């Protein structure tokens, strides 16, 4: 019988070998064999892996100016006592000075989004009103909850950027990329607008999430209350939010799929509303989604991308709850439940999935 500390040591070595992202299929098989040999092995590995993934929150301390400092977490730079009171470097007060300030890997996406937004004319609108705006953003795999001065709270999902301006007469949010959940403080004198690509959502006091899939494809999910949604290309757009009175309404327990000139509203079971908002707890919850969709969800949160190499498994239905930044537990579950084979590319740690039985 092996000793506890030996098992922990071995589990930590496995974890680091795998997390390097360069493990061969043989290494994965060997890890699987080690875990199958004793449930304590697997439990010890899961414990370390969950811890290792959970500390990705530390990415939030990264300075926005892009400087690299290996001593960022030293006693001189960060004090546990302050973290205890304030948490990790609240995003508030980290204004963007320009594209130079953005973290490198995100830059291309931002430029693409900016170009797309410019194309539909938001750019000019944004420029004219820039005064008084405050910017918030999260990196890949991060999420953040912020409180606004009007009492509204906003949850930012992975790789999300938004700007906020609150005045005496209105509250405006510009969601430029990603996904956010708004718990809007009720204030009938100050309507609350979210502009996402060409879509505009108007609320008074509700809870709803908005996700930009691309500038002309936006999803809105309403958990409480009711919002008005103006589609790009219609009169009720960001330039004429007052015309929203006639725009389609989306109520609690409904979701809208917004495209150019159209708002398609459908019902969502209360359980599914909670499931779709599981990201606010760092979770992805699947229930009958296709493997294709599930993989795309994971890829939003992680540098290491998963691709499906066999079309035959694209539509496999999956279920279960996983940590957003822990694709390995998802992969492990796929291996166990469907015999799906995994190939990890040595170059970049990306993961390719194959139907069971087929050599990678």
């Amino acid at each position: 019988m092996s000793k506890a500390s030996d098992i922990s040591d071995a589990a930590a070595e496995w974890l680091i070998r795998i997390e390097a992202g360069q493990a061969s299929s043989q290494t994965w098989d060997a890890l699987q064999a080690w875990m199958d040999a004793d449930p304590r092995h697997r439990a010890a590995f899961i414990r370390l892996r969950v811890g290792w993934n959970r500390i990705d929150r530390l990415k939030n301390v990264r300075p926005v100016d892009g400087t690299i400092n290996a001593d960022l977490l030293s006693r001189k730079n960060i004090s546990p006592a302050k973290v205890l009171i304030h948490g990790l470097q609240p995003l508030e007060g980290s204004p963007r000075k320009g594209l130079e300030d953005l973290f490198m890997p995100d830059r291309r996406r931002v430029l693409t989004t900016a170009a797309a937004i410019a194309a539909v004319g938001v750019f000019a609108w944004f420029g004219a009103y820039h005064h008084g705006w405050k910017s918030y953003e999260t990196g890949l795999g991060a999420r953040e909850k912020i409180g606004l001065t009007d009492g509204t709270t906003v949850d930012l999902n992975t790789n999300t950027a938004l700007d906020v301006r609150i005045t005496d007469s209105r509250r405006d949010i510009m969601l430029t990329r990603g996904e956010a959940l708004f718990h809007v403080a009720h204030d009938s004198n100050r309507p609350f607008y979210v502009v996402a690509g060409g879509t505009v959502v108007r609320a008074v006091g509700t809870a709803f999430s908005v996700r930009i899939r691309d500038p002309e494809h936006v999803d809105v999910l309403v958990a409480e209350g009711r919002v008005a949604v103006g589609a790009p290309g219609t009169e009720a757009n960001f330039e004429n939010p007052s015309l929203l009175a006639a725009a389609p309404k989306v109520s609690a327990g409904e979701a809208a799929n917004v495209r150019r000139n159209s708002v398609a509203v459908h019902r969502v079971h209360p359980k599914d509303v909670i499931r779709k908002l599981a990201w606010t707890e760092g979770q992805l919850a699947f229930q009958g989604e296709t493997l294709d969709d599930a993989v795309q969800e994971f890829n939003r949160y992680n540098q290491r991308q998963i691709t499906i190499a066999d079309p035959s498994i694209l539509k496999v239905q999956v279920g279960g709850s996983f940590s957003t930044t822990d694709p390995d537990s998802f992969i492990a579950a796929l291996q166990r439940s469907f015999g799906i084979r995994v190939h990890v590319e040595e170059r970049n740690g990306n993961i390719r999935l194959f139907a069971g039985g087929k050599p990678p």
Partner: protein
Amino acid sequence: MSKNDERYLIQALDIECVLRACLYRYTRNNSDVDELLQEVYARVLLAGSADEPEIRSVRAFALTIARNVAFDWLRHRQVVPIELVADMEALEVLDEAEQIDEIVNSHQELAQLIGAIQELPERCRQVFTLRKVYGYSQKEIASRMNISENTVEQHLTKSARRCAQALFDQPIAERPATLFDRFRRRKGSHVQGQ
């Protein structure tokens, strides 16, 4: 894949300090606690793949398993009078249930984590920072810091163990004193009640 069989274990990790406190009360020895804790986790993990109705309170379930594991261990040892065990068991149900709600505090968890990272040797901390905060690859870190990839791996292995410990085994404020006091207090009132 209708269920993710790791789900119970992942929840149980959040009360590792309570599970440890429970095990410690029987063993009075930290290295035995480490051994027994792994057994507890293994059983929790297996429960997740069993074809049983969903467990509602995973935390209470994990505590029950911890007590069972500790009992098995004690019986095997035959060193503790059985009435003491029974007495202790009655106390734990209350004590630990009270503590569970007190632990989950994300700022506290982060502060604990930062503290643990700052206790790592300097090089180890730097390697960790480059990997986890900045996302450098192991190879890039090796060339940047002019050390071998193997050394990078060793530093990361050490920090992974330390971080898991900091995240899951957070000391509950004043744990020893509180538990000891409660033990004495309850024991006293129990005697008076008779």
